[in-house]
C-alpha cells in the first residue's frame, strides 16, 4: 500500500513537472532560446513608452500595455510584439472583412498593418506584428509612429471613403494613397 502511494506521488510529481515544462514550451532548447523574449518585449515597450511620454511603461500581467490611442501586446506563442492603434469603438463586431481585402488594401496605406476588431474592448484597431527576434528599439519606435500616423489618416479621411467603396456608393481613388500632405487634394476628390 505504501509503495503504491509512493509510486502515485512520483507519478503526480512527474506530471506536475511535465505540465510546468509544457507551460513554458515543454522543450528545453526552445525554452532557453525564448527565455529572453519577455525581457526584450518589456524593454521595447519601455522604450516606446518613453518615446511618446507615457507615464506607465511596463508590460502588465497580461503582457499588455495600453498608451491610450496606441498599445503593445507581447504574444509569447507567436514570439511577436503586436502594436495597435485605435481606429474607433464599435458596439459589436461590425468590422467589414473587406478592410483587409484585395479591393481596399492596395488603395489605402496601412503601414504594413492589418485591421482587427477586439471583441473584449469593442474597439477596431490597426495592428502590426513585430517579430521579437529581429525588431530593434529604433525600428519599433519608427514603425509604431508610422502606424499611429496612418491610423489617424484612417480615422479622419479614409475609413468613410473605404466603407463607401465597400458599399459601392463611392468611387475608389484614382491612385493608391500614400501618407503625405499630398493626400489633401485626393480627399477633396472624394468630397466632390
Amino acid at each position, binding site marked *: 500500500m505504501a509503495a503504491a502511494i509512493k509510486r502515485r506521488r512520483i507519478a503526480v510529481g512527474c506530471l506536475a513537472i511535465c505540465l510546468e515544462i509544457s507551460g513554458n514550451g515543454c522543450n528545453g532548447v526552445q525554452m532557453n532560446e525564448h527565455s529572453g523574449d519577455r525581457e526584450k518585449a518589456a524593454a521595447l515597450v519601455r522604450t516606446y513608452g518613453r518615446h*511618446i*511620454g*507615457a*507615464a506607465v511603461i511596463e508590460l502588465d500581467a497580461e503582457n499588455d500595455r*495600453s*498608451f*491610450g*490611442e*496606441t498599445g503593445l501586446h507581447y504574444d509569447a506563442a507567436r514570439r511577436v510584439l503586436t502594436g495597435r492603434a*485605435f*481606429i*474607433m*469603438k*464599435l*458596439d459589436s463586431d*461590425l*468590422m*467589414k472583412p473587406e478592410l483587409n481585402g484585395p479591393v481596399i488594401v492596395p488603395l489605402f496605406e496601412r503601414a504594413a498593418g492589418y485591421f482587427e476588431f477586439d471583441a473584449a474592448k469593442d474597439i477596431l484597431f490597426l495592428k502590426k506584428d513585430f517579430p521579437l527576434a529581429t525588431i530593434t528599439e529604433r525600428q519599433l519606435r519608427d514603425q509604431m*509612429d*508610422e502606424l*499611429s*500616423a496612418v491610423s*489617424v*489618416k484612417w*480615422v*479622419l*479621411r479614409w*475609413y*468613410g471613403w473605404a*466603407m*463607401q467603396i465597400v*458599399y459601392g*456608393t463611392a468611387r475608389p481613388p484614382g491612385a493608391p494613397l500614400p*501618407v*503625405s*500632405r499630398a493626400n*489633401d487634394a485626393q*480627399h*477633396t476628390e472624394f*468630397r466632390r
Partner: protein
Amino acid sequence: MTGKGDQVGVEAIAHAEQDAYQSETACCKSKRDNGMPPRTIVYVNGIKTDQKTHCETLRAIADQTCAKVYGVYNATEGPYRDSVQTGQDRSAIDAANEGRMPGTGDGRNPAVDTLSRLLKSKVLNGEPVDLWAHSQGGAVSSLALYDVKNSLDTIGMTDGLKGVHVTSMGSAAPMWPMWPDGPAYEHYIHVNDATPFVYGIGDDPATDGDKAGEGASVIRFSGDPAGGPFATENLQRSAIPAPTANHDVFATYLKMQKQQHGGCN
C-alpha cells in the same frame, strides 16, 4: 458628466437629458406657451472650466434659447494639463494634416468617448442633435463626430450625421480636415480671439470650404465684448489676436449668438 478617465454609459446620458436644465424665465415660459417647438441642446465646455462655470453656461444657454440644455463636462485638471490635453486632442488631426506623429500619452479625452456614445445613440434612434461647443469643446466635438461618422459608415449609413446641428464658439478644433461633412454647422469666430485664429478655422474665408464642414456657416465678427453689438462687416482686426480677452463664452460668444438669432434673457 465626465471626470477624466470616467466612462459614461447610455443610461447615464439619458438620465442627464431627463434632468436637463430648462429655463423658467417669463420670456421662455411665454415662448413655450406660444408654441415654441421643443429643443434640446447638448453643450461641451472648453479648457479651464470648473463644474460650477459649466453649469452656469448651461443655464445661460437655456435662458437664451429656451431649450432644454445638458452638458458633456470636459473636466479641468488645471491650465497646464488642460492645454496638454487640448494639444493631444488636436494632435490626431494635426498629425493627419502634417504627416507628423501624434504625441499621445494618455489617450483620448474621455469626453470624446462620452459625446461619441451620446451622438451615436441619438442618431441611431433618429433623434435630432443640437450640439454646442466652446473652445477645446470644439476639438472634443470634432473627434466625436468623426468617430460617429465612421461607425455609421460601417453600417452603410452615409447620411447619418444629417440630423446633427453644430454650433461652435471660438473653437479650438484643429487643422484641416477640421469638421467632418454631414452635420449643419454654424461656427462663431471673433476675429481677435487667438484660439480659433491659431488653433481653429482661422480667419481666411477662402479655406472655410475645406475646414469648416460642407455647407458650413462661418460667422466672423469683431468688437468689444463689453461694448455694443458686434460687427459682422468691415471687421476690425488687431495686429495680434488676444489670448483670452475675446474668448469668453458668456461675454463674447453667447452674446453674438443672440445677436444672430435673438433669444431671451
